């Protein structure tokens, strides 16, 4: 019988039909064929598919095991956001740690851009680091059980005394009573001002105990309108923080939305007045952000006062070296507060070497490291912060006020889903600044939207707990 010759027997055909009908296969369907040629072709396809599925399953099962085994040493991976200056310090620290601990090898992964997204993908891909830098997005990860609880270790370890840290600082990496980390540095926002422009306007330099009225008067006098009626210099650039008005978006425990309050409405109204009534700060349409970095506004004397953060310090000290500038605390409105955030190293819950990871995590709280990093954040240990301030030379002269600011910290509450909740706030705020909504309408809408989100998160949490 030729290879492609179909069986002539009706009995065979009927038998095959019966057998295939058991599998609900109809004549003419893909699987229904006793043609040898087709069977061979299809056999090859199935073989290829089988190989494909096996290879895929094998690759998935091996993910996370590739390239990180080292039989001779304990290997720890530390992930940090890339930074030219900071990476050098991390490398130096790690080198010293490896000399002291020859059995531990540390690999630094400095991640450039979109740090949290990349970290997330590393963790999900089972190649997450053993230790990782963490800032504002702490709760996003902590809520998902990514970090190792160090509460017990902190109690028993004599190298770290929590009494040297402000309670706000300790709370930063705490969730549901569990401590997951202690920040090594505090990020602070301060108001920088151009001293020359103050002198030129016949104004005394601002003092740390100044009020909103003082601030407004100075900003008005520092604003310059040219002959064509165009504002060539604004007295102030930015927005006064809502915490200064005693307002909050969400409660510290993350359970209550607080955006629709008279304090928050006042925050919008005062800042809108600065933009529209007094014209001392640029409106969104005046903002010339594209292609011009924000430092240029200050260096080109386009504004007399504007906010910077401690992480800008290293850069602006060089950039503004020819400018006579200094820093001052926020003016008092209804409260005297300072926006703040933190930088810290936390340990992954699934690290293979928790003891070695803890050993390494502790050196990020050491005096040497905190002082070395003080060029971009204030040491979180109050003793080292004082030392950093005493070692500081040059501009800004009023650098010691950072110590005072440490007592007035007003961080954004570290709550789960923070980024999603604040994306809503920023979106709605932007509508207010652009005159598309009144503060009252915007905050009413936002309150409804955020409450709905909170409810959703709560339901999700309940489902997870039930499971």
């Amino acid at each position, binding site marked *: 019988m030729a290879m492609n010759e179909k069986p002539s027997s009706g009995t065979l055909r009927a038998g095959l039909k019966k057998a295939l009908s058991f599998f609900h296969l109809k004549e003419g369907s893909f699987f229904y064929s006793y043609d040898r040629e087709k069977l061979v072709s299809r056999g090859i396809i199935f073989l290829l598919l089988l190989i494909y599925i096996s290879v895929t399953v094998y690759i998935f099962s091996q993910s996370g095991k590739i390239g990180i085994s080292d039989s001779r040493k304990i290997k720890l991976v530390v992930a940090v956001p890339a930074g030219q200056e900071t990476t050098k310090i991390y490398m130096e620290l790690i080198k010293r740690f490896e000399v002291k601990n020859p059995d531990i090898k540390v690999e630094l992964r400095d991640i450039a851009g979109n740090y949290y997204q990349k970290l*997330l993908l590393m963790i999900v891909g089972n190649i997450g680091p053993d230790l990782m830098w963490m800032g504002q997005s702490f709760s996003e990860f902590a809520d998902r059980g990514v970090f190792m609880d160090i509460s017990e270790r902190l109690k028993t370890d004599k190298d770290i005394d929590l009494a040297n840290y402000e309670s706000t600082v300790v709370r930063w990496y705490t969730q549901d009573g569990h401590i997951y980390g202690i920040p090594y540095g505090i990020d602070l926002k301060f108001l920088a001002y151009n001293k020359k422009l103050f002198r030129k306007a016949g104004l005394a330099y601002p003092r740390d105990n100044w009020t909103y009225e003082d601030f407004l008067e100075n900003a008005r006098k520092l604003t310059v309108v040219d002959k064509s009626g165009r504002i060539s210099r604004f007295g102030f650039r930015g927005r006064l923080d809502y915490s200064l008005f005693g307002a909050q978006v969400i409660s510290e425990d993350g359970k209550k939305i607080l955006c629709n309050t008279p304090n928050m409405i006042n925050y919008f109204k005062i800042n809108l007045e600065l933009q529209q009534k007094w014209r001392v700060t640029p409106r969104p349409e005046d903002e010339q952000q*594209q292609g011009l970095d924000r430092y240029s506004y200050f260096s080109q004397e386009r504004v007399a006062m504007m906010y910077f953060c401690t992480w800008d310090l290293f850069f602006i000290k060089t950039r503004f070296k020819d400018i006579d500038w200094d820093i001052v605390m926020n003016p008092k409105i209804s409260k005297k507060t300072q926006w703040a955030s933190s930088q810290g190293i936390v340990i992954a819950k699934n690290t293979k070497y928790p003891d070695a990871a803890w050993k390494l995590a502790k050196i990020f709280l050491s005096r040497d490291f905190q002082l070395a990093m003080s060029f971009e954040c204030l040491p979180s240990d109050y003793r080292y912060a004082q030392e950093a301030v005493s070692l500081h030379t040059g501009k800004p002269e009023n650098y010691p006020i950072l110590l005072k600011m440490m007592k007035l910290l007003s961080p954004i509450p570290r709550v789960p889903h923070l980024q999603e909740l604040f994306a809503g706030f920023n979106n709605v705020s932007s509508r207010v600044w652009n005159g598309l909504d009144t503060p009252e309408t915007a905050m009413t809408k936002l309150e409804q939207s955020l409450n709905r989100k909170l409810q959703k998160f709560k339901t999700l949490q309940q489902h997870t707990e039930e499971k």
Partner: protein
Amino acid sequence: MIMGFPEQKHIGRNTTAWLYLAPNFLGFLSFTFIPVLFAIVLSFFRWDIFNPPQFVGFENLRDLLGMSIVNGKIAFNDPYFWKYLWNTVFLMLTIPVNMLVSLLIAIMLNHPLKCIGFFRSIFYLPTICGGVGILLLWSFIYNPEFGLLNQALALIGIKGPGWLTDCTWAKPAIMLMGTWGAMGGTNMLLYLAGLQGISEELYEAANIDGASVFQKFRHITLPMLRPTSFFIFIMSVIAGFQGGFDAAFILTGGGPAGATTTLSYYIFNHAFVWFNMGYAATIALVLFLIVLIITIINWRFGGNVHE
């Protein structure tokens, strides 16, 4: 056996064909088909990536498309979705303009001019240079103070707006950029190919009848290009629904006030910024259904083009 291939060769030929197809087929399976299936399944789950997915049935769909009564008023459960869908559709309003401009350029480039190859290359250049570089170039053009556009407007006494920071102008700015990129690219090439496929005899007959240039364009060129136009329209609509991500991500961050956030950027935020993978998959599924429905309608409606 006289006719055809011997049996062994027949089997070998099929196998060879399958082996040639296999890399592409497996690539499609790995990077398109399985992920799409996975996304569809995922849309019925809540998944924050870290914890195991949780089956929630149609809850994501209800949160996305449903409505509820808040303070006695009916409100969308996710008003942002509708806003961003509107943004996406709004940005697609340039499709007819893009097509028209592409057609005009193609007509110009269809003439046997000197150095026509050079001009064709020049007009195709935006497609070759596409990407982040082009977006950054546009960010300089749109710079409110030093940008080319506002400098040009200043010459005629107009104070240009903050193109990418102003709620009113951000969308038109993105649209203008899109038109620039689309007019001389693939659409133009397709029209050019379509124009070269029109028989000269039709124009000669029209000339004998004394038809004007406009009449020839209206009664010969346009009808003969209907299949091309239809194809370009469908592809542009599909691309439009999926588009807007790069401009939002690189130029505007979706702002100001969400004015340039499109569905694709919203999906990205839900998936990779807020870790709501299930919800992101639901938006993607709805987007897929929208594109599917529009394509089916277009195909049914567009069936006439071949008549």
